């Protein structure tokens, strides 16, 4: 997947990804309208579906709210590349099928507006603007199984039916 980059810093927290004042709804489309609002009030006016978020350390820290990856997914964020992810955000993204890539080198070298090319199957991040590329370590097999099934609930129900 190819997309233009929206760059953020470290410790982007779930209150910034989707502020708690909107959590009286769990409708992904409604949540998506307020994505990243407290970091950049006009973000959703400028963002185009298919673009990629790149951030520093500990992306998605704070609350466990799955509304955060849901809002990003519904907004059309193709993937999030970060130096590291907070653990609950990480598992939520795996569980709902929001593509995430942990790659500190790519996160450090990539700037706002760069074009990235992600090959998740082969484990590679390319910065087309800067003509750089980095390998990405694959997820453990157990996590790949969840992703391949299309998310945790699919994985679990398929297993239950297979019994």
């Amino acid at each position, binding site marked *: 997947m190819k997309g233009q980059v929206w760059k953020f810093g470290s410790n982007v927290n779930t209150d*910034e990804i989707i502020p708690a004042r909107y959590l009286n709804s769990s409708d992904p489309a409604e949540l998506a309208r307020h994505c990243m609002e407290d970091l950049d009030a006009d973000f959703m006016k400028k963002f185009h579906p298919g673009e990629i978020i790149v951030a520093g350390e500990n992306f998605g820290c704070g*609350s466990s709210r799955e509304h955060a990856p849901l809002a990003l997914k519904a907004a059309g964020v193709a993937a999030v590349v970060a130096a590291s992810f907070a653990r609950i955000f990480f598992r939520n993204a795996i569980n709902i099928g929001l593509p995430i890539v942990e790659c500190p080198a790519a996160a450090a070298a990539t700037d706002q507006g760069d074009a990235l090319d992600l090959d998740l199957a082969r484990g590679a991040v390319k910065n087309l603007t800067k003509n750089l590329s980095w390998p990405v370590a694959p997820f453990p097999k157990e996590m790949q199984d969840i992703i391949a099934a299309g998310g945790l609930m699919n994985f679990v129900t398929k297993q*239950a039916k297979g019994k």
Partner: protein
Amino acid sequence: MSSHTITEKIIAAHAGRAEVNPGDFVYAGVDIALGNDITAPIAIREFEAAGVTKVFDPARVALVPDHFTPNKDIKSAEQSKILRDFAHKHKLTHYWEVGEVGVEHALLPEQGVVGPGDLVIGADSHTCTYGALGAFSTGVGSTDLAAAMAIGKVWLKVPSTLKFTFTGTLDPWSGGKDLILHTIGQIGVDGALYRAMEFTGPVITQLSMEDRLSMCNMAIEAGGKNGIVVPDAITREYVKDRLERKAVYYTSDADARYEKCYEWNVTGLGPMVACPNLPENVKPVGELKDVVIDQAVIGSCTNGRLSDLRIAAKILKGRRVFKGVRCLVIPATQQVYLDALREGLLEIFVQAGCAVSAPTCGPCLGGHMGILAAGEVAIATTNRNFTGRMGHTQSQVYLSNPAVAAASALTGKITHPAEV
């Protein structure tokens, strides 16, 4: 089977393994799966969309409508109704209506729903609180909750453990909150990312259960997977007569492997305050004398228990909240409310000019019941001070223990409790 931490032993026991090591990937059985009025609606939607018709065990799913309750608007009422209908449909043992409900992480330990040796997951990041009881307890997302409600299991990567040893003598104005703020200040908001945080040492073994709960509550603010204290006599005394299942007491082996060990002598460590906008921006209270506040909040899953209200009442007794400051007191559960009422604490608060509310998470997450305007500043006994956490993005939150919050309410500035 030796050389393991308490965290590794509890996970192994629930995964049906003789032992597990850091990095192992397991599916572990859960003793309690928890959700609230924000996270459970998504879990219930996922559960039903997958065509699952029964929860794995109606006694092992806990639904706690505590965030936007008593319902703040029509949308939140609809969210709560999803929990209520699901709880009734599946005949859940652990569902509490407004009037019975409290802040989840104060309520579940108090009611004996969680206890030593348990493996608990909750679709709320502060689920790590129950590690104070000697449980493995961690926050997950709504889909994890949906899967756990269906099959009674959760996927886990076994964390390595960081050991925090506290020695010396605890300052009379400091408590578990100050120890954990100090810890986060030292290691940062991702200093324990994916790790277990084990709290130990002579200061911890003398620490009350309510202080231990405050400490483990904020493990997530250092990125931790869980916080944990090896159970002891204080644990046994706390769970006696309240735990609904049998406690299993695990301990860490003397030769258990830790990724890193920290040891701090906390003698002379006075009250600590986390400054905006991250819990790692920790300073001694004395360095913040010039910070003027508009609001003080005493409550939450971190510090809304009876001992917290007792500390606040001792400071507020016979005095008045500073003119122009709003002081909110939120007992974390109905039992805390009733105990505070019987002890005369609520009368002290009302006479001091505090607003006392029904149990709710309310202002902690900027939900309702005490939202800040642009430019306003709060001191709060809560656990997070991110940008806009309690309201407007240009408002600010300082985190402290209840004594500092109460003292600051009296002076209108961040104040050491010994000075009032």
